């Protein structure tokens, strides 16, 4: 369909003057895209956190939880959006629920591995020094798990930014709306803007998380420098 579109039209791939006239719309779509990604990611981290804690407390739940999150991920995005809209309308809740659901399959195993990877000796020493369970969690386990957790968040954020565009087919906001609009109107400029915007956003998010991880774990560089 899209190849036909590009083949049949005499439209140029980009009309540069359209960009200048639609800065506000592009900005609005960017904000929507970021909002949907960030909110879904945040919710995904909370829910995946609960799932990961469950797995770490009861190892037999690993199989069932992995099966369910994988199964949910296997639902085609178009189908999931289409199924939720009759229930929840075209508000933000549909893309957020769908995207949060998809994020779990990436985030949960990363969280489990990250916390499993905290050195047992650090945990034992924390207990022996008299940290309470809560103090041990926030002061020792979270900081030590963070670099690996951020690795998972990077992959999840890039995945979600791609998936947000699917919601555009249902007018749910973000760059997807531009792409959908461009296809309906046989107007390549808007499609290109949507696609390039989405890719750039993914790169920005990825770099931002790399920076955050770097800033939050100065000790890893110190250890590397000495070896």
């Amino acid at each position, binding site marked *: 369909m899209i190849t036909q579109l590009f083949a049949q039209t005499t439209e140029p791939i980009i009309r540069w003057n359209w960009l200048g006239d639609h800065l506000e719309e592009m900005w609005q779509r960017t904000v929507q895209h970021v909002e949907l990604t960030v909110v879904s990611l945040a919710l995904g981290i909370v829910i995946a956190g609960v799932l990961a804690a469950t797995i770490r407390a009861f190892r037999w739940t690993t199989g069932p939880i992995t099966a369910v999150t994988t199964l949910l991920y296997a639902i085609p995005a178009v189908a999931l959006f289409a199924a939720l809209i009759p229930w929840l309308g075209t508000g933000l809740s549909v893309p957020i629920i769908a995207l949060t659901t998809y994020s779990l399959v990436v985030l949960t195993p990363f969280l489990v591995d990250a916390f499993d990877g905290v050195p047992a000796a650090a945990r034992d*020493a924390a207990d022996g*020094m008299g940290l309470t369970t809560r103090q041990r969690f926030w002061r*020792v386990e979270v900081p*030590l798990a963070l670099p690996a957790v951020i690795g998972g968040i990077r992959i999840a954020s890039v995945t979600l930014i791609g998936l947000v565009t699917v919601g555009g087919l249902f007018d749910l906001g973000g760059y997807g709306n531009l792409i959908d609009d461009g296809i309906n109107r046989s107007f390549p400029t808007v499609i290109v803007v949507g696609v390039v915007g989405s890719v750039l956003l993914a790169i920005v998010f990825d770099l931002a998380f790399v920076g955050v991880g770097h800033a939050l774990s100065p*000790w890893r560089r110190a*250890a590397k420098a*000495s070896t």
Partner: protein
Amino acid sequence: MTDPAIELRHVSKVYPGATTPAVDDLTLDVPAGELVVLVGPSGCGKTTTLRMLNRLEEPTSGEIRIAGVDVKTLPAHELRRGIGYVIQQVGLFPHQTVEANIATVPRLLKWDKERIRARVDELVHLVDLDRSLLERFPGALSGGQQQRVGVARALAADPPVLLMDEPYSAVDPIVRARLQDELIDLHTRLGTTIVFVTHDIDEAIKLGDRIAMFAIGGHLAQYDPPADLLAKPASPFVTEFLGGDRTLRRLALIRVGDLPLHPVDSGSVGPAPTIDRAQTARGALDLLVSSGAPAVSVLDNGRPIGLVSLAILSASVRSEDNT
């Protein structure tokens, strides 16, 4: 003797699912200010015993008192803040600087910043660490430095009791010997009660005021000062664990100055090799064998005070057997 710092009364530990106990009806007093070494083969329950003292493991039955207080009556985290704890893998927090690591317990106890800084300074001096290391992360330190930081961290709130779980088994022999000497020195200066777990009998003999030897199955095989343990092993198991050169180990615990020496003027012995009175009888034996001389001249500040012969060394070991 003052009240024991640590009392164990009929303490047993059976892990869930295990058929035999890890620790079996253990009754033991650790006198205040002493360095007691728990030693034995792996699986003998020595580490479990140590970890029951700060409630990292809970006994299945029996009672443990520290400074007269039943450990069960305190919340575990409060009890642990009053007990130093050093482990083999050191367990420094890799994401915190050396300074923050050392300050762990004082921070938990909510000391003010000035007091913490002053204490960290004191500790760095005490364990002989370079001050410039305070801002580093543990990953940038050598094994020996990490172990010193571990000890400083354990001593930060000046606990009356220090627990050490095979702290030197992961460092090389030269560093280990130095850390052992430093611990002896530290113990002499601070008078902290120390319970030290090791599987290395040489380390136990070197460090311990008393040695508790465990046999497989969590039984206490013998509990005595090193010299008594070597002189009178209570069972074939103890004898076997002490190894074949038991007599040499005993000589290593005797200072030549403490032996009944031959007077210097008893006949002419010719030019004898010399040894300082603070050296061990084992050192004197070494000299006797290597020089072939009939006696070694014992010096006090460079002045000969007597002669030691093979007969005297031999008698010292035999007489202890008979007591």
